């Protein structure tokens, strides 16, 4: 795995992110001074908590990128582990699932990232959908409890796919062999994370500022048509503006960003549906203002595999 050098392009990206965060913090500060009403204060306090958390998350992400491949693999492995913990905490499991869940947390999750760290793409891509998928019901059948068997296994398999397998596609971008851009795959990861997260932020901002019509009232009452349109357009603009760090031309970058943002939007909706079914608003309280880890990465879970495969098919050798 190549150590990612912090080249000129990475420096510019870092400076850009720093500028955006500084502007956000400044706006947050002035809104805090201005706001009078009780309800407004609550909203602005949450906004400022979110911005503060963004500083922390951005710094961690950049540190991981700067240490090269291995840092990113470890970071996403931790994210998967914490996301799976939030998911299983919220999902009712049976007493008899205990051993299967232990395997999921302490063997299958780390193994997936070990495979990626050692460039075993061929195995990494089938380990969870094939072997873990078969292993979970086998382990549960050994545990000897048939009650709700199908539902119990599906919950664990689903959790592994969403929280571990799909998330692992993000650091797997570092395995791609893109001709002419050797050692620069960290920027693909940056492109993916930047577009998904900013698309989320812009959906939130446009929704709060102009949101009128609910887009999925039953599933996620805070999501609006206006937020959706703003988020998609914003993501496409940002993606297009970042074409120079990718192997894509400007219009290819725009389409990629659209695909990422669309998948991210549906990822957010799907994970919301689970939350609503369980009667909670957030998956956890790990990230102040945002909720749990899984609330922050729901869009990434759905966008990462699609972005990886499109890049793999059309741009990698």
């Amino acid at each position, binding site marked *: 795995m190549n150590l990612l050098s912090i080249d000129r392009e990475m420096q510019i990206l870092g400076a850009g992110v720093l500028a955006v965060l500084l502007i956000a913090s400044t706006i947050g500060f002035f809104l805090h001074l201005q706001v009078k009403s009780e309800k407004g204060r609550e909203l602005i306090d949450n906004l400022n908590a979110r911005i503060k958390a963004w500083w922390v998350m951005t710094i961690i992400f950049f540190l991981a990128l700067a240490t090269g491949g291995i840092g990113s693999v470890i970071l996403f492995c931790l994210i998967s*582990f914490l996301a799976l*913990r*939030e998911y*299983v*905490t919220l999902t009712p*499991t049976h*007493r008899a699932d*205990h*051993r299967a*869940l*232990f395997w999921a*947390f302490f063997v299958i999750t780390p193994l997936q990232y070990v495979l990626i760290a050692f460039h075993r793409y061929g195995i990494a891509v089938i380990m969870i959908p094939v072997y873990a998928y078969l292993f979970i019901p086998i382990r549960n059948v050994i545990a000897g409890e048939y009650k709700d068997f199908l539902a119990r296994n599906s919950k664990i398999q689903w959790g592994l796919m969403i929280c571990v397998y799909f998330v692992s596609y993000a650091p797997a971008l570092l395995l791609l062999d893109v001709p002419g851009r050797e050692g620069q795959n960290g920027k693909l990861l940056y492109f993916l994370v930047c577009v998904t997260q900013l698309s989320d932020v812009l959906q939130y901002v446009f929704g709060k500022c102009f949101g009128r019509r609910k887009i999925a009232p039953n599933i996620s009452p805070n999501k609006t048509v206006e937020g959706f349109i703003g988020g998609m357009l914003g993501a496409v603009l940002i993606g297009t503006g970042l074409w120079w760090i990718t192997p894509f031309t400007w219009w290819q970058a725009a389409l990629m960003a659209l695909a990422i943002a669309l998948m991210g939007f549906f990822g957010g909706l799907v994970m919301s549906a689970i939350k609503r079914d369980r009667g909670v608003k957030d998956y*956890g*309280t*790990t990230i102040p203002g945002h909720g749990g880890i899984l609330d922050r990465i729901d869009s990434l879970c759905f966008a990462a595999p699609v972005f990886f495969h499109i890049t793999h098919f059309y741009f990698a050798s």
Partner: protein
Amino acid sequence: MIAALLAAFVRLFTGVQARWVGCTPGAMHRVYFANHTSNFDFLVLWSVLPDQLRKRTRPVAASDYWRAGRLRRFLAESVFRGVLIERKKVTRANNPMDQLVPVLQGGDSLIIFPEGGRTSEPEMRPFKSGLYYLGKAVPEVDLVPVYINNASRVLPKGELLPLPLLCSVIFGEPLRLEKSESKDAFLTRARAAVEALIDL
């Protein structure tokens, strides 16, 4: 030292959150009584107490279980400083109250699980009478109901390896034994006070 490290590990492993709903973490001596479904119950309750409080809070545990085996014995005696009591053949000579009351009078707090053992069912069992006798012997002590959420999924009874699931510990409003309150009435009230925390 081992205790502080272990507490930090438990907090990290279970991401446990303390919610002081009915009282604040205070220095006065107390009896924390909680539901009991897992060996992790005590660990999560103990690990969310602020450091200074934890040093002066001792679990009440069954001596038959915690004196069996070297590791259990070391943990119970040296790390948790448990007050190990007889739960099977209680006689006048080994009456647990003779051990517990001096601890409270010395200013330390206690953690007890009045169901008398771990349950696998979702319903709590009826409380044993120890809590009543403690309240009677040391009337000025606050009896704090505590509900421990999810520890049974972290480590169900009979399992050896824990899962890293998120737990929470909810502290309710302290009770005291009312004058002329009967044993049964008090124990029912105390059990209801823990149950009332479930939905908070």
